[in-house]
């Protein structure tokens, strides 16, 4: 028996099959069923345990299967691969050597063990330690990792004051994005008078491209619950809510199972572990409004009102849910508590930078070789994440920008790749940690269009209550639309900047206060692209439809008819074996013909300038 990964005791071999949302959608349920069947047929059931786990993080490569104790890593597993995997698990079996192994994005070489994969070996998986290793639907698995011991320690060895003190010394800051010192909220709630207080876990992860909270809830729900229970004990609350969006059905299901199992084991409910502390947790499903991630809007939503923010003060710690002192923190913040209680504040404070302790978790997506969820110590640079863990841009294309913090964050250029990733450094650069979304873009992305995309998101998701946000985001969107359509004027850039500053300062809540960030940072770092759109009517990434046109090169066209078939508006004419031609009046610039024209011909070109305009 060896102790491996996360301290779980393994018996012979264990097959960990990812059942996170990403892998499930890639077919991992079928892989699991099939593998169990194969193993039974091979008579290996005694020696090999097949376990369904939460997210392994490397979502891009799913479905993932990990074999312990060797640490074998199978990626992109298909049902056809299952018999081979099953046979390899027999005592005489050898690890597979080709399919379905992961191939390094840079070298193209197969890698058999996950700890040899740069995506994994450069991370520091603390909060995510259990994700991918335990069955989130089995509390026994969690208990085997030492789960709920910190709860016992908190309840029987520590006073509420000591816990708050420990949190304070740890330097933990809110991982919902703003990085507000966690202890200040805990202390305020603890000191607030009254015996009716609430603990709320904000799992309303609404940013496009962010999914790490979901992964934690799906992969290790108990760590979050435990953090909430300890928080309840520390501040004197008896009731907690997990506010999770209804679009996360798997997370909700696993939370429900976890709460149920924890209740049966006496970790939740009346007189927890026979102490005189009682605490219950309820799941509240949000209806998918982005603004409900804002804490006061979230409170309104639980109270049955329209999810709209209100001005602070009073802060939720003073007057929160139903007017009672309320502690609201993000999923990741609660998930960190067990480490602080278990290993102590000093241990925790040893990770990270001077001002930002612990780890940061990102959803790394976009034009990146290895996309998925990564956990790194605070202070690591963007370059290390993007090139070290992420494997750089696919196809060796040059890096253009990275948008951190989702629609509230900013867009940083290559010059800033060495910026440390922590709350303060990102903020100084004009961006933010925010939700933990990290979207990498290359030269094929138009920066104006990218800003427009995020502003469009804010326009739709603004709650509509205050004018700067409701009207301002829409005003910026209208201007950006004009620019991408080639109708912008140079004065519009000044207007965007002036508006952006006014909206940031004038808006009621964080949504509006950060909504202009994508525009302001791109104006700061990529101003020339805006100017190109306005003056030259040119989109260098050839994305903005009004500034490009498609043309069929007569010398390369073989009249194969593929493009005429895919064109949705019948804009391409030409008989079979005859050279085709695009009617520019009809063309909607969807780019389908460009994509479908066989590379061996490469007859369709995407060019600058609107053909219509040239005529």
């Amino acid at each position, binding site marked *: 028996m060896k102790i491996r990964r996360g301290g779980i005791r393994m018996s012979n071999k264990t097959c960990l099959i990812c059942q996170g949302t990403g892998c499930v959608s890639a077919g991992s349920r079928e892989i699991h069923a099939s593998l169990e069947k194969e193993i039974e047929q091979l008579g290996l059931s005694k020696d090999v345990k097949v376990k369904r786990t939460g997210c392994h993080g490397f979502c891009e490569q799913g479905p993932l299967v990990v074999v312990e104790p060797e640490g074998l890593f199978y990626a992109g597993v298909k049902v056809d691969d299952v018999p081979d995997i099953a046979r390899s698990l027999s005592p005489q079996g050898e690890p597979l050597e080709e399919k379905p192994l992961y191939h390094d994005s840079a070298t193209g070489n197969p890698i058999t063990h996950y700890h040899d994969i740069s995506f994994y070996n450069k991370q520091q998986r603390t909060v995510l330690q259990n994700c991918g290793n335990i069955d989130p639907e089995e509390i026994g698995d969690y208990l085997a990792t030492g789960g709920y011991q910190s709860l016992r320690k908190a309840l029987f060895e520590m006073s509420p004051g000591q816990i708050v003190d420990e949190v304070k010394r740890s330097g933990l800051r809110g991982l919902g994005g703003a990085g507000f010192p966690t202890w200040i909220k805990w202390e305020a709630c603890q000191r607030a008078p009254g015996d009716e207080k609430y603990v709320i876990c904000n799992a309303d992860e609404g940013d496009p491209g962010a999914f790490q909270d979901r992964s934690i809830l799906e992969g290790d729900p108990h760590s979050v619950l435990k953090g909430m229970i300890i928080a309840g004990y520390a501040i004197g609350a008896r009731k907690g809510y997990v506010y999770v969006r209804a679009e996360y059905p798997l997370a909700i299901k696993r939370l429900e199972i976890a709460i149920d199992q924890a209740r049966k084991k006496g970790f939740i409910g009346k007189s927890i572990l026979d102490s005189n502390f009682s605490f219950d947790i309820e799941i509240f499903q949000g209806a998918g*409004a982005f603004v409900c991630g804002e804490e006061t809007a979230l409170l309104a939503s639980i109270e049955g009102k*329209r999810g*709209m923010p*209100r*001005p602070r*003060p009073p802060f939720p710690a003073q007057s929160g849910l139903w007017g009672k002192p309320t502690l609201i923190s993000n999923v990741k913040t609660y998930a960190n508590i067990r480490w602080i209680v278990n290993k102590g504040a000093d241990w925790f404070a040893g990770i990270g930078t001077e001002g930002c302790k612990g780890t940061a978790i990102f959803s790394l997506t976009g034009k990146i070789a290895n996309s998925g969820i990564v956990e790194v110590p605070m202070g690591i640079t963007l370059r290390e994440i993007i090139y070290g863990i992420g494997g750089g841009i696919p196809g060796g294309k040059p890096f253009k920008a990275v948008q951190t913090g989702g629609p509230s964050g900013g867009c940083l250029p290559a010059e800033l790749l060495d910026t440390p990733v922590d709350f303060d450094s990102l903020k100084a650069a004009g961006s933010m940690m925010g939700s933990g979304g990290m979207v990498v873009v290359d030269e094929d992305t138009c920066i104006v269009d990218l800003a427009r995309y995020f502003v469009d998101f*804010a*326009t*739709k*998701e*603004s*709650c*509509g*209550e*205050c*004018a*700067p946000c*409701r*009207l*301002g*985001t*829409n*005003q910026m969107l*209208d*201007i950006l639309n*004009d620019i991408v359509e080639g109708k912008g004027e140079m*004065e*519009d850039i000044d*207007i965007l900047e*002036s*508006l952006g*500053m*006014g*909206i940031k*300062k*004038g*808006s*009621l809540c964080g949504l509006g206060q950060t909504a202009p960030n994508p525009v302001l940072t791109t104006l700061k770092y990529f101003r020339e692209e805006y100017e190109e759109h306005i003056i030259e009517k040119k989109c260098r990434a050839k994305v903005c439809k009004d500034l490009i046109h498609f043309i069929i090169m007569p010398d390369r066209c073989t009249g194969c008819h593929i493009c005429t078939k895919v064109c949705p508006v019948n804009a391409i004419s030409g008989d079979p074996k005859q050279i085709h031609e695009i009617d520019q009046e009809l063309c909607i610039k969807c780019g389908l013909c460009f994509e479908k024209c066989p590379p061996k011909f490469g007859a369709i070109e995407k060019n600058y300038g609107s053909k219509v305009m040239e005529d």
Partner: protein
Amino acid sequence: MDMLSFNINGKLLTVGKGKTILEAALENSIYIPNLCHHPDLVPSGNCRMCIVEIEGRRGQIISCTTPVEEGMVVRTDSQEISHVRQTTLELIHANHTQDCTNCSSNSACELQKVTAYVGVNEERLGRLRRTRQHYNIDDSNPFFSLDHNKCIMCGICIRTCDEVQGVNALDYGFRGFNTVVSTFGDKPIKESVCESCGECVVRCPVGALTFKETRQPTFEVKTVCAYCGVGCNIYLGVRGNKIVSSRGDRDSIVNKGRLCVKGRFGYEFVNHEDRLKVPLIKKNGTFVESTWEEAFSIIVEKFSAVESKQFAAFTSAKMTNEDNYVIQKFTRAVMGTNNIDHCARLCHAPTVSGLVQSLGSGAMTNSIDEFTNAKTIFSIGSNTTAAHPIIGLHIKEAKRKGAKIIVANPKEIDLCRFADVFMQQYPGTDVVLLMGMMKVIIDEHLQDEEFIKTRTEGYDEFLDSLTDFDLDTTEKITGVPKGKIIEAARLYATNTPSSLVYAMGITQHSHGTDNVLAVSNLALLTGSVGKESSGINPLRGQNNVQGACDMGGLPDVYPGYQKVTKPWAKEKFEEHWGVKLDPEEGLTHTEIFDEIEKGNIKALYQVGENPILSEADSNHVKRALANLDFFVVQDIFMTETAKYADIVLPAASFAEKDGTFTNTERRVQRVRKAVIPEGETKDDWWIASEIARRMGAKGFDYESPNDIMDEINRVVPIYGGITFERIEDEGLQWPCPTTNHPGTKFLHGEKFTRPNGLGKLFPLTYKASIELPDSEYPLLLTTDRSLYHYHTSTMTRKVKGLEILDGEEFLKVNPEDAQQMEISDGEYVTVRSRRGDVRVKIKITRIVPKGIASLTFHFHETPTNELTICAIDPVAKIPETKVCSIRVEKMET
């Protein structure tokens, strides 16, 4: 109050603790631009205009939500602040209809005011995209319209509808840029739960919510609303000789500026073309326009010819105190009879007969304003939000402040939305329900022993009678689950101060007096009477029903509840009036019709009443009226009853005369003449005085209502100190015996007004209603009111908008009954009782429980009272209009 000092723009201010920076600034005439602030509402901080800078704090801070702190240094203007304000303002302008000069809010617009202060950068504004969407105007409501294109989304309307009205007809709808003020399901306002109170329109800072008719008056006159007994203070706006607006008086303690739909929009009737303008005399069966001279000469001749006992008069709860005083004086001093009564007989007679026995006085013990500080409010038999909307608002306000609300009502009325306990008792079982609650209180020792010992009598006999009302029996008879009875009893007895509210659901029964005694038993048992915010509060229906009673519009008492049978009282009035008076009690409302039918009463002088619609078993009324020798009606419209008259005299309406109304909380308030009377209409007191003078009587030479009030001051002790001069600004609550007495906020503080000063508990038994459903008439019919109409709708149905909002009667039936009877929603049916039948549309609703149906009596097309039974309470003589049995018959197709 704790005071704080702070510095604002270099100026040192001292303000009360808890004030926000914005409040403190505005109070001290320091303007901070704002668009979403309203003093009545919880600040929402959404307009982002009131930003300030505070030394030591980062950025711009919203002043409407930030409380002043000691030593704070605030700046209300800076370059940064200007930029942020301008950005927001320019965004609003880019999204706003720019037709200021045509806008009805022009010059009263807060956006204009803020723009003038903040200023906009024209060039920047010019570069902004015109983001305005083109929304259709919602003009579904007859009184006001909503133009989204002018809305600045300050949310004042939404918060008013929520925080003040508790209606929640409006909220934000949709998301992001598409967010608008909307109704549930984005339906037109008329189809929403909107109650058309218009409070949102009054408060809209721009031209988004506007009244449909320009209501800019030439001048305004402060007076009292003519609808229900709440007595809201209003300003009537006059233009030409027409009433064009009505506005709540924010300084009034009664309504604090708030009004209901009738109070705000219900004044078209004053200038309505159907107003009676000249005296009418029936000649050969038809009315002929005549002169006052001719009418008076006939009346004098006929009245002089009848014997005292052959004469009766109905005075009116809609008229002023002065009118009522003169009409009862005329009846008693000139006609020599106590045969005078009015519609109080049909509403609160049991209150008077019951509460006089138990407490000594039959009026609301507390003030309206005290509701808001009650911890428990128990509303039984009162559809408060429909019949007394502004008291409904006080109850909702109490709820917002944390009060517990108990509702007992056979129907699931609107107030149930706010109820902590809702007991849906079977109609007519109130005695059982209340005694059952008292049994719980005794069993759990929650009674106030000290109060019982020192302030009451009759406890032992009462206790004996309580044994019959154990929980099982109570649950069985009332249909209310035991748990709710227990919960209500505990709340009422322990979560004090408790205030009890009741209305027609208690009184309009053949055992109405018992019901009232049960109510007073409950209050006495728990010591919940005679204290601030704690007492028994019968809500009086008509605007001046309290005053009509106070003024002796009753057969058994002279003005001020001085019994006609007491020799000292009779002598006193004989001395003041200089005539011999009738020593016997007169006949009551119901008895008068009986005597007319028998031929014993031959002449009737009826002022401002419409018994053909309002009296139970009204076919009986029709038969009686046909039997009269001489019938004079004095009214503002040709009512259903007036058609039976020999002479119809045109009276001035409330807006055309001076005087006083006494509201339900005993507050005597000034009514003022706003417009010149229509046609040849005259004040009621003048008409009665003129008849008296022409009949040779002395003591009717009044020149003004003030003269009459002088006389009232002299003969009515409880009104002794209430002079026009003293109530110029705010009314006084009786008892107010002397001119230096401050009036009485709540009654029975030291002792009860019974002769021995003690409250009396009464033993009670359950008496079933007289006519209960059987196989022949299987449904129980009860009666209720609509928010949009008033009594027999003589006034409200003259208001077009009210008619649009509620223009037709519906028989409300439970879905299960409807299914069983195979009738569908909106179908016309015949409703038949043992006394008559009416044709009416069906409304299927769960508001009424199975087995019970409900009608109002607002619609002459559907004379509900042809169905009701004239079973009367033996003491109060009130008919049982809340319970009779009916059957529903499908119409022949």
